[in-house]
């Protein structure tokens, strides 16, 4: 697999074998192999839209492997504020660094950046479209937990309509023959276009409205936040959000061994009483962002083979 110089824009750009290699390299990094390989490398972090977790994770990933970061965390301090085009910003920044990580509110911004940059561009979220490093770290966490990505029964719960995380993850898991169960209120179902794409790759999935309708236990329940701003009526939001909260009693239907994941930030959808249980792997999942992003940076910069 040739990763040197490649941009990481969309999970769709990666066939199954490449995803497996990236997951494996991430676990190698986590185990301590490849330490310090990002020494003397400079990463530009261009966050045209606020993000705490993803930005800090990339910065920590870079610094703890010997590299350095430059960049901004707010579009108001960049030249975009002065009316500069994104393409021109990227053409300039590309000369200051070895790789660019970018979050932008407009869909396709990362693809455009990858076309004009002379260094690899890593997409840290482009509007509602893609956030591939989140998908990779989700897969790394599943591989770490189960020792495999294939033949798993995975539920996705909550806002499946607007959550780009679940769209990409569902597509990636389909490549590994997962049985997927989409659990959401009717108004927040997995969108038709995502379902079309899943059907195209022969995905095995079903849709239900409540975990009580589960017919088999799950290996993983991937929970997403239901956002207030998606509802015009606040009472309707409270009713829906209340119905999609996971607490200890949920494991009677999920199965005692079911692992719970969440892209974070969490609000009320997972009860804090789960935090100390073996079922809760969402904080470890977030921490896996570091070795996963280190592996991706190392691969595209040619210092991890």
């Amino acid at each position, binding site marked *: 697999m040739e990763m040197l110089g490649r941009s990481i824009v969309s999970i769709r750009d990666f066939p199954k074998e490449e995803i497996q290699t990236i997951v494996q390299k991430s676990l190698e990094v986590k185990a301590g192999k490849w330490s310090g390989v990002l020494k003397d490398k400079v990463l530009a972090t261009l966050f045209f839209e606020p993000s705490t977790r993803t930005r800090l994770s990339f910065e920590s990933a870079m610094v703890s492997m010997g590299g350095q970061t430059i960049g901004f965390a707010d579009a108001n301090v960049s030249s975009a504020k002065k009316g500069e085009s*994104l*393409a021109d910003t990227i053409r300039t920044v590309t000369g200051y660094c070895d790789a660019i990580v970018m979050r932008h509110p*407009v*869909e*396709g911004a990362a*693809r*455009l950046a990858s076309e004009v940059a002379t260094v690899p561009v890593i997409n840290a979220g482009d509007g509602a*479209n893609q956030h591939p490093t989140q998908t990779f770290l989700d897969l790394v966490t599943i591989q770490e937990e189960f020792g495999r990505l294939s033949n798993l029964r995975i539920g996705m719960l909550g806002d499946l309509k607007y959550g780009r995380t679940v769209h990409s993850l569902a597509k990636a898991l389909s490549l590994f023959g997962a049985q997927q169960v989409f659990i959401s209120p009717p108004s927040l179902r997995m969108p038709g*276009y995502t379902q079309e*794409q899943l059907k195209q790759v022969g995905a095995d999935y079903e849709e239900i409205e409540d975990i009580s309708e589960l017919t088999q236990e799950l290996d993983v329940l991937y929970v997403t936040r239901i956002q207030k701003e998606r509802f015009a009526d606040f009472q309707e939001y409270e009713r829906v959000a209340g119905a999609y909260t996971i607490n200890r009693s949920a494991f009677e239907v999920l199965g005692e061994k079911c692992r719970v994941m969440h892209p974070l930030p969490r609000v009320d959808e997972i009860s804090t009483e789960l935090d100390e249980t073996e079922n809760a792997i969402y904080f470890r999942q977030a921490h896996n962002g570091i070795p996963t992003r280190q592996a991706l940076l190392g691969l595209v910069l040619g210092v991890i083979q």
Partner: protein
Amino acid sequence: MTTKAHKVYAIENGTVIDHIPSPNALKVVKILGVHQEGILTVGMNFKSKKQGRKDIVKVENLKLTAAVTDRLALVAPTATINIIEGGKVTEKRPIKVPLEFKGLLRCPNPNCITNVEEIPTHFKREGELTKPTVRCRYCERIYKDPGDLVI
């Protein structure tokens, strides 16, 4: 003596676009931008052995080049182009249906970068040749009626 009745009369010089899937004739006219280019004959819903129903567009006194007619790839991939000179067919060609379309379509997603920055759009064709869908290279959305997106 019997005279064969022509529902769409023959032209002496120009371009005949045959085997257009019904009812796309008007979209063909729009995409070609020939509605003010002299006499046009549009026939719709003719019986066709190959495709059930077909439309025909005849453009008089205008020899349309492949670069122009290939823009019909998404509304009339099955069409044939006949160039007529002196009442005779001097050239007959199919439509080339490429796998990618650069600058031909607009992306209807208002939050797509192609609607924010001045860059040419870029779509990939997916699905069946006769019923293509397209995917925007940038925002990655898939559209079912790409013929409606032709700029």
